[in-house]
């Protein structure tokens, strides 16, 4: 690839530079945090099903472990590059820091296309991954989690290989496991609940009673579903959700002005995440165009589907009543739209913070694994509430005190925490 090409790592570095400038970090700290602490580049030879031998290239990047063992995904992708993995590792460092869990940031990947591999071959790659890294990963040094084209099955293969080599059980070395294999209760709710805990805190600051507020959601997957569940429990009213319709290859919004009924909608939602239009009309929902969710007269917008949904083309369609946008998805607001919204009165809870419930729960999973004692769902969710609320308050206080946007504040706090830890350890 050309030197000038778009490079995720460079993007991540320039974001860091911006925060470092604000924090006036010294050059050594900058140099230290701009790059990963450790990188492993290795190969995984495996026997393919047809007896042929094939060698796969792989990386594990440990960006920073000043605040605790690194944690991060392992992805399988045919065009994976080390820079993409470096960028993800760095972002993980900031993400764990901003929500205040004692973990660092890492990420890894194997250059392979699962579409070209049988399950057994993928299992061999997972086991090969562990064999190469066994000395450098573990519950106290580096924890792996599912990422692009990997899932809990891959984690279990890796865990099994790890435990087989070491001759003991270390469930905390890999997260994202199914509950019966050491996963945490409440994981499925964590991201959605986390968003609405942040929204609740934001409303408190805005002096608005959550009772009587209204919201509109983009997406009706797991994240939205549980966010709506918590929001309704807290007294809010959701009047619109939009979903993608696989048959028509476009999205639709479903509106009920006196509030949607989550169970009714769930009844008519297929496992593919689409709401049945006809049945929705039958039970009193208005079926509107896909982007109508954005135009509703509500207090809160929650884009929880895919990236780049709020752009400079549609910011003008956002209703004047909207007070909060809580970014449930990753990067739902384009940078141009972000600039426009920053000038408006709308308060943005950045993705970084809003959807951190997942990371927190992943941390809870390790904690429970490591002490081999498991909490029930309510306990997990209560602890999540405390963590989210605290993280939110930190960012929001900082934003207010320093007259900095929420997104920048979150970034700056994160970098600051990591820099402090490095400093305390006498590294820089």
């Amino acid at each position, binding site marked *: 690839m050309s030197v000038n090409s778009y*490079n995720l790592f460079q993007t991540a570095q320039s974001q860091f530079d911006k925060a470092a400038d604000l924090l006036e970090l010294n050059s050594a700290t900058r140099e230290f945090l701009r790059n990963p602490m450790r990188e492993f580049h290795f190969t995984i030879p495996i026997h393919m099903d047809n007896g042929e031998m094939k060698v796969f290239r792989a990386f594990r990047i440990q960006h920073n472990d000043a605040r605790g063992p690194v944690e991060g995904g392992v992805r399988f992708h045919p*065009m994976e590059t080390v820079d993409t993995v470096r960028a993800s590792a760095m972002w993980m460092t900031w993400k764990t820091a901003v929500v205040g869990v004692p973990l660092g940031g890492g990420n890894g990947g194997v250059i392979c296309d*699962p*579409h070209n591999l049988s399950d057994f071959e993928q299992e061999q790659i997972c086991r090969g991954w562990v064999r190469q890294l066994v000395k450098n990963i573990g519950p106290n040094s580096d924890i792996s989690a599912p990422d692009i084209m990997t*899932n809990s099955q891959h984690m279990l293969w890796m865990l099994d290989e790890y435990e087989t080599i070491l001759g003991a059980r270390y469930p905390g070395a890999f997260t994202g496991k199914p509950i019966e294999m050491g996963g945490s209760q409440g994981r499925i709710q964590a991201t959605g609940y986390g968003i609405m805990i942040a929204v609740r805190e934001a409303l408190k600051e805005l002096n608005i009673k959550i009772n009587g507020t209204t919201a509109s959601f983009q997406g009706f997957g797991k994240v939205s579903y549980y966010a709506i569940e918590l929001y309704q429990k807290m007294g809010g009213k959701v009047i619109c959700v939009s979903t993608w319709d696989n048959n028509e290859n*476009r999205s639709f919004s479903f509106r009920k002005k006196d509030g949607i009924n989550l169970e009714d909608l769930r009844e008519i939602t*297929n496992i593919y995440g689409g709401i049945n239009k006809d049945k929705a009309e039958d039970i009193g929902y208005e079926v509107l165009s896909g982007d109508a969710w954005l135009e509703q007269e509500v207090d809160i917008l929650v884009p929880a589907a895919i990236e780049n949904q709020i752009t400079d083309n549609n910011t003008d369609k956002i209703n004047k009543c909207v007070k909060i946008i809580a970014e449930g998805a990753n990067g739902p607001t384009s940078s141009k739209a972000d600039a426009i919204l920053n000038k408006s009165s709308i308060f943005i809870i950045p993705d970084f913070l809003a959807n951190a419930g997942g990371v927190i729960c992943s941390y809870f999973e390790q904690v429970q694994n490591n002490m081999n004692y498991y909490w029930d769902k309510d306990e997990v969710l209560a602890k999540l509430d405390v963590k989210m609320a605290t993280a939110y308050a930190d960012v929001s206080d900082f934003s207010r005190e320093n007259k900095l946007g929420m997104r920048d504040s979150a970034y700056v706090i994160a970098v600051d925490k990591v820099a402090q830890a490095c400093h305390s350890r006498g590294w820089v």
Partner: protein
Amino acid sequence: MENNTGQHNIINELKERAKELNCLYRTQELLWDKEKTSDEILQALVEVIPQGWQYPDICFARIICQDTIYQLPEFTETKWVLSSDIISQGNIYGSLQVFYVSESPECDNGPFLKEEEKLIKTISELIGGYFFHNQLKSVFEASKKKDSKKEWVVIIDMLKKTDPKLLMRISRKMVNFLCWKGISEGEKLFDFFNPTNGKESVFNKEVNSPFHAKTESDSYLISNKIFEIASKYLNEKEIIDSISRWIKQDQSGFLVNILSKSPITLNEISKALERYYHFKSQGLVLTPIREKSLRINLIRHILNDDNNFIKIAKNFVSVDDFKDLIDKIIYPVDSKGKLGGKSSGLFLADKILQNSRLSDDLSKQYKIPKTWYISSDGLLNFMNYNNLEDIIDQKYKAIEQIRKEYPYVSHVFKNSLFPSEIMKALSEMLDDFGGNPLIVRSTSVLEDRQNTIFAGKYKSLFISNQGTKMERLAELTDAIAEVYSSTFGPDPIEYRAERDLLDFDEEMAIMIQEVVGKKVGKYFFPAFAGVAFSRNNFRWSSRIKQEDGLLRLVPGLGSRAVDRLSDDYPVLISPGQPKLRTNVTLDEIIRYSPKNIDVINIEERSFETIEIAQLLKEYGKDYPIVNQIVSKISGDCVKPVQRLGMKPNEDNYIVTFTGLVNNSTFIEKINSIVSVLEKELSYPIDIEFAHDGDNLYILQCRPQSYSKLGKPSVIPSNIPKDKLIFSANRFISNGCISNITHVVYVDPIKYAEITDYDKLAAVARAVGRLNELLPKRQFFLMGPGRWGSRGDIKLGVNVTYSEINNSALLVEIARKHNNYVPELSFGTHFFQDLVESGILYLPLYPDDDGCEFDESFFLNSPNILSNLLPDLEYLSSVVKVIDVIAVTKGNVLNVLMNSDDNKAVAIISEKDVRIEHIDSVKYNTETSKSSDFHWQWRLRSVEQIAARINPEYFGVKNFFIFGSTKNATAGPCSDIDILIHFIGTSKQKEILNEWLKGWSDSLDYYNFLKTGCKTGGILDIHYVTDEDIKNRTSFAVKIGAITDAARVLRIGTDLN
């Protein structure tokens, strides 16, 4: 209540069978009674025989034998009679008759049961055998008296008395045999068999008098002489062996005689075969050569007279195989019909799998569902019977008239009657089938005659086969009539017209098959079904080879696997590489899993499509082999299921067939079946199959058809260099796209140089907007790396399927970079969408040896992006839109792809050039129908509409046409794009809309009559205002546009 009646029926039936058996035993007892004379025996028989009949009290038997009549004193002759000849050694000795003296309820044949017909036949055979035995006894007794005689002399004597004609034939064979042995005495005997009596020169002379016929005594003398000579040179054993061999051979002579007759009726064949099997059971053995000749004749008369078919079939089919087949063919009296392509294809496939030496135990791996046939002339017979001959001429009418009249034809057929002998046979057939649902399929004789595949052109209908016998029969005949009427439907007639097959009478046979499946709740369906192709032309991984094959699997009835689905997906598996699945991530697996299932609703007696999720909720645990069909969604992945552990109401299950791939031998089985068939038939094949949970059933086998899933194009050999835009030679599928007017080219180098995420994302959105703007299926997309990549955006343009769904082809370019060639996606991100919607995919490796890539065409052609989308001018260096017609001065691009040759080319060509592609593996070519027709009438109609627009009344300033009609590229389903420059009020707009809707609907109907396409209103109307035109917003860009500019039509020229 109903149960009791059912039980009662069964008991009655069993009682009847017991009576019949009893009657047979008593008959045999009598015939073997050595104490009684034959008169006594026959007289006793007329008392015994009536006991075997349903109403013995009113039943009388009579035996007439060589002028003697045996009957009871109270015997009376009536019209209710069943009769059978008593035959011994081919001679009729008399007859056996059974009478009812008074009327009794109507059964299979008048008042008689079909079992009783068999019974009377068996008894008369027994009596015949008795006479033969008596004759032999007398001969042997005579020979005992003169014990000096040799054994062969006894046989000759016996033959003289019993079958003199046979004796002559055997004598003749002995002469031949002697000559072979070089015995000169024998050669002289030839003269006797020569009608000219050895006067060699007689043929050279004019002879006016008839030859002298030989008398019987001459014959006896000569045969004595022959065998005397034989006894001189041959030992006794040799003579006896030869005689007995010849006698056996002679018994099958009638078969040869009949089958070499032409034309021959199915009835004659059936009778002859029946006799053959009878003799066979008595020890008849055919010589290999005779067996072969019989086999070939039977194949020719019953299955298919195509030489290629016979050449293969004769190696696998034996005479015995026809035994069961012939009993299951329903045919009109004097029928000379055949079974049709589908039936004979399946029959042959079955025999190949049973007898192939390529694999040992395939015959145990599958079953063929019970099948009956109606011979191909059943259709004409049905039409003659109902005086429907006129409908035959239907095919010569204009296609729109055919389409209009087709519902009427169908109605008339369904209200017509079947001839009584067919009805009777159908009724017997239903008894044989029992109560399982059936499928009535057409099987056209034209399919084999002309090497054409009528895939999906004729109807196949499922029937529930439930209810009373009368209801079942009515449902069945209704379905047959409907399938018959589909012969006169517009689609097959158009198809035949295109192939010059119109003048042939359509001989359509019918195949009635038991539907494979199980009853689950109120539904009946197979666990799964599908189509297996021996060649895989849709590869989703570079590791899959063409010969790894392809399976399209669906839960339930296979109807969903055969055709492309617009709203659902079959599961695709490559049996050679079953572990390389098309879908890997949970999202993909869920999105592309089958959502619906076709079933037969037993209660409603209907064919239905229902949601699989609902079915699993209701009957999840009862679904046959559910653990091999579905997986459970569990967290972020799918898990195998155990039937007992299923919680249909709590958990989500989706169809993945993972269990089938991992924990069953199915894939292995189907793979070996398909590869054996391909090897033995020596062409690629596809088979349809279904699995009821216990067994795999093969339903159809035919040459791999490309009709639905892309045909290979013929790649021209010498393309001028200046016409060739690119060529490719890796992982090519089949297909052809023609008349391409635009190419959207995302420059791989420029794309890689973009450093800003928003700009990368903007490229994808630009492609999406072009997808809306460019003429559907007349443009294609080319770009770097992986289209639709969901990971790192720079690896490929991250479009969604809806942003490319109008493209004709997707090209992924892999440019070499520092000795590293990036891996392409093979369209995996929306692979199944591409397959089902027929969008082609092509990976392009421009830096490979032997690949051409005319980069200058892409770099130097003018870019019209900014004309189309002025706001995206900043992407012009990355996204190039090439107007092929403008660049090539009126030409278009054609992309031809051939999987078998692994080659694809994009060439500049004149518009509507004839493209050769391969219709089926039997390689005949088809020319594409001129597309002029479609745009011409559209344009003429729109001109008429424009002429009738009153500009003041409607508030219309200008009226434009654009798109495919204007570009002369409209296809049968194209709409007509109209642009109206509107300056009126909203009221006027309402009126105008109403007025245009009338036009739109009526033109749509006209188009439907012509082509069968319904668009639901053919006019696609876009309005622009003064403001739009000023700002060049909305469709106003079309006015004066560089590409596909709207053309103004004159309005208001014909206002009356």
